[in-house]
């Protein structure tokens, strides 16, 4: 086969700068095992303090006054009625109304003013009392009308911004070589992050120094945002985030509410808490942009895609782009893709778990099955035939084969379940890729004291991935200890510089520094212990909670006794990320089985199989949890979530959690995770890739069941019935 080389993903990385710090090749004691979260007991008992839970002496509560209009000029703001509300403390107007630019709000929820009161209830009262006079302006509400040129001009030089056109090969020749061509339009919708803990901050000033508890994916970037936004030195800002309730990309940067909170706290002369409510979350804290593509594709009689011509667009809101990869993964030598960003008057997008990939995956994979049907090929075989032969770490070929076997793909029927009755069953599959990988700076500080205590300190944060546990695991692994013997200290800018938790990079960026700092501390400890053991440091190893002569465990000391030789000054070491212990790019393949009731249009996903790699698996238990979470997140994208705008007012009609639908436990299928460990590649990252292909696999299972493509998400019952009906009419 032409693409036989596919699957060489396990190629070893370049060695680390100093190979003695590399990951051990011998059997693992801690790294790679299943370690329960160290902070699990704190989380299940309610002891874990999230930003939402922080209470400071004399703390006041803030509330933001926001525009109800998608586009309007703020004529005036009268704070005086708010001042008469019981408990009122202070208020600010967020925009300069004399400046014609800043006086204009660009979307529903755009910040106008903010108030502070003694209780949250009073703050809500005061915010309601603020009198704002708006002059509503024409708004762009629908992407279609913007594309058709029927929308008012709101975003000069145009509501539609053409992006780059990418072209490869010879499109005309490609279409000439095609035995079949297909022309279709595919699209995905806008969804929002819906972090369970809203965005928010508690700010407390001590003179010109600010301490901010922020629900953030990056304590250091939050500090930078606060310092630059408030025009104060970074050294004057301390950001703390011990626990945070989900970010999914929306908490990588501090939003305007963070600066508003800091300013209000200064003005009030007291600590201020500002947590957004659910409606604000939907409106202003980011979203996954929509994506659409009108595609013409050609396929040869033997199943090679010969040509791919796509015109794509999407909206990321009032000025933000909506890029996504297209075509996704598969080899299409003759291709053209022209993209346009469409601006509408809604809150701006922010990165959301694998930005762009779920959209590119859905659009490409639905087309793949339609092409496979044209040439009457099995979808797995068709995919394998069109894989790129030499993509880096492309394991898709072997994962598709393994998955098909394990999932019972041979039992899959051709498109359209012909069994009688209204319940139709089908299967689908899709693949994914994601970069991940590590980078510096990510400084880890290790401290070993004479009482045997070990602290590993770094300015990273745990956004729910299990990072706190990883810090302890990697340290313990290097020192021959158990994770419970290590105190991981993260979530505070006082612990130094480390990156934000985004792009599936946290584990890969932080673990090399942690390991090296721990190993350096061990080297120092060995030097101190060696004389007592009548040997030299180079003969000593650390394992099983002891420091002993290699191959002679009896000739040694327990960790506690060894540390007694440290003396009054603890051993302190520091190390940064270094290349060679991490690499980039993951592969995955997923299979889904769904039942569809063609009388009601209701889809129930019954089974999902996810095969996924992430380089060296650090914690098998939490890495699997990431995969479960990714699959379920993508299921939500496929079936339930939808940001619905009123087409006249431009207001979101479901800014809550009862009409903005999310899966409950009954909606969750049986999920099997097959995590591939590739220690030779070093650490890569796992947060994002497993959330990419599920939506497409589910949509294809639905297609396989009902015999018709639903070419847009979400797969609501109404849409499925509509698709079935229009197909019947055509027939």
């Amino acid at each position, binding site marked *: 086969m032409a693409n036989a080389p596919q699957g060489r993903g396990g190629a070893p990385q370049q060695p680390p700068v100093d190979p003695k710090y590399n990951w051990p090749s011998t059997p693992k004691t801690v790294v790679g095992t299943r370690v329960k979260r160290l902070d699990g007991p704190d989380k299940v008992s*309610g002891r874990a303090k999230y930003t939402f839970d922080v209470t400071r002496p004399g703390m006041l509560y803030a509330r933001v006054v926001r525009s109800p209009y998608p586009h309007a000029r703020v004529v005036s703001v009268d704070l005086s009625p708010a001042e008469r509300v019981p408990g009122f403390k202070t208020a600010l107007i967020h925009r300069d109304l004399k400046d014609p630019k800043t006086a204009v709000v660009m979307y529903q929820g755009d910040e106008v003013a903010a108030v502070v009161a003694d209780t*949250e209830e009073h703050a809500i009262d005061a915010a309601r009392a603020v009198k704002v006079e708006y002059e509503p302006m024409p708004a762009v509400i629908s992407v279609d009308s913007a594309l058709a040129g029927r929308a008012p001009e709101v975003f000069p030089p145009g509501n539609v911004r053409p992006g780059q056109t990418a072209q490869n090969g010879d499109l005309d020749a490609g279409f000439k070589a095609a035995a079949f061509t297909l022309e279709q339009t595919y699209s995905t919708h806008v969804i929002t992050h819906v972090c*369970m803990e809203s965005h928010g901050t508690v700010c407390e000033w001590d003179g010109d120094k600010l301490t901010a508890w922020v629900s953030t994916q990056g304590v250091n970037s939050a500090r930078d945002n606060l310092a630059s936004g408030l025009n104060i030195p970074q050294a004057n800002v301390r950001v703390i985030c011990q626990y945070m309730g989900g970010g*999914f990309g929306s908490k990588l940067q501090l939003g305007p509410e963070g600066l508003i909170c800091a300013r209000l706290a200064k003005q009030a002369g007291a600590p201020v808490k500002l947590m957004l409510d659910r409606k604000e979350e939907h409106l202003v804290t980011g979203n996954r942009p929509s994506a659409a593509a009108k595609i013409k594709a050609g396929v040869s009689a033997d199943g090679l895609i010969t040509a791919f011509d796509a015109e794509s667009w999407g909206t990321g809101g009032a000025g933000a782009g909506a890029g996504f990869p297209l075509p996704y993964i598969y080899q299409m030598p003759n291709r053209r893709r022209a993209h346009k960003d469409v601006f509408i008057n809604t809150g701006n997008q922010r990165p959301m778990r694998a930005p762009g990939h779920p959209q590119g995956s859905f659009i490409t994979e639905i087309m793949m099955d339609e092409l496979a049907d044209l040439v009457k090929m099995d979808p797995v075989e068709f995919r394998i035939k069109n894989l790129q032969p030499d993509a880096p770490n492309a394991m898709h070929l072997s994962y598709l084969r393994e998955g098909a076997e394990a999932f019972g793909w041979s039992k899959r029927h051709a498109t359209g379940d012909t069994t009688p009755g209204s*319940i139709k069953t089908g299967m689908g599959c899709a693949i994914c890729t994601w970069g991940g990988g590590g980078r510096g700076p990510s400084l880890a500080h290790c401290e070993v004291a004479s009482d045997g205590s070990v602290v590993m300190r770094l300015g990273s944060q745990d956004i729910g991935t299990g990072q706190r546990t990883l810090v302890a695991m990697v340290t313990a692994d290097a020192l021959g200890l158990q994770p419970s013997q290590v105190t991981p200290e993260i979530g505070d800018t006082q612990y130094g510089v480390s990156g934000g938790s985004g792009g599936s990079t946290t584990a890969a960026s932080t673990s090399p520094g942690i390991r090296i700092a721990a190993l350096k501390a061990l080297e120092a400890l060995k030097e101190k212990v060696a004389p007592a053991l009548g040997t030299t440091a180079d003969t000593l190893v650390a394992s099983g909670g002891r420091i002993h002569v290699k191959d002679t465990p009896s000739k040694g000391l327990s960790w506690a006794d060894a540390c007694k030789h440290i003396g009054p000054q603890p051993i302190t070491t520091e190390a940064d990320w270094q290349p060679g212990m991490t690499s980039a790019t993951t592969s995955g393949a997923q299979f889904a089985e769904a039942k569809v009731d063609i009388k009601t249009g209701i889809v129930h996903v019954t089974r999902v199989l996810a095969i996924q790699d992430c380089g060296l698996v650090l914690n098998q238990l939490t890495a*699997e949890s990431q995969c479960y979470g990714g699959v379920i997140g993508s299921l939500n994208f496929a079936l339930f979530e939808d940001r619905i705008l009123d087409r006249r007012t431009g207001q979101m009609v479901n800014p809550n*959690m009862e009409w903005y639908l999310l899966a409950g436990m009954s909606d969750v299928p049986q999920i099997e995770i097959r995590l591939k460990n590739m220690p030779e590649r070093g650490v890569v990252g796992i947060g994002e890739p497993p959330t990419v292909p599920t939506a497409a696999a589910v949509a294809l299972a639905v297609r396989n069941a009902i015999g018709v493509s639903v070419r847009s998400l979400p797969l609501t019952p109404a849409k499925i019935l509509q698709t079935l009906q229009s197909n019947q009419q055509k027939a």
Partner: protein
Amino acid sequence: MPRRKDEPGFSRRSFLKTVGASSVAAGVLAKAPAVDAQGPAVVGPGAVPITLNVNGKSLRLQIEPRVTLLDALRMRADLTGNKRGCDRGACGACTMIVDGRTVYACSTLAIECQGKKIRTVDGLATGGKLHPVQQAFCDKDALMCGFCTPGFVMASVGLLEKNPNATPEQIKKGLDGNICRCGTFSRVFEAVASLSARGTQSASKGDELPDMLESNAQMDEGVRRG
């Protein structure tokens, strides 16, 4: 018009006396006999004293009658274990057990809970020992960011206390009122199933519950969700 604590009818004794009266109104009223032809007398909007029984302890608070049980405990008693996700009784992060029943504490007024036994996640572990449900969540990694977890834990405790032999379908149904955005459902299910005598029993093994898509109840549920 705000009422002060020292105004007639707001002594703790007379307040407690009215608790347990048949109507909800009586529960929030200081002077139950004062109900006239115009309907029940209005309490608030200012702060009034209330007494709650939380995790076996008596808790006296001065709150406005509009304050929810969740906000009263979180913001006035620093019992921050239970969370607020949606504030509209949809996500379940606020789930508490009141008189043996799970409630959405974000959609329950604190003043209505006087005289009732309120249990929050903060009081679930006893003497430093985790409740078996909490332990199972830790063991199965049934949590990620952990923000929805207290609600899931309380919903699971409520479910298993009512039905220690919950079947897989009953577990799923029983926890359908809780939302997790990280996607821990599979492992929450495992954790709860491990504690139920019939939790790991497969639904096909002679269970009375029919196939999901053929059950009318499930279809109704699907329509509601869809």
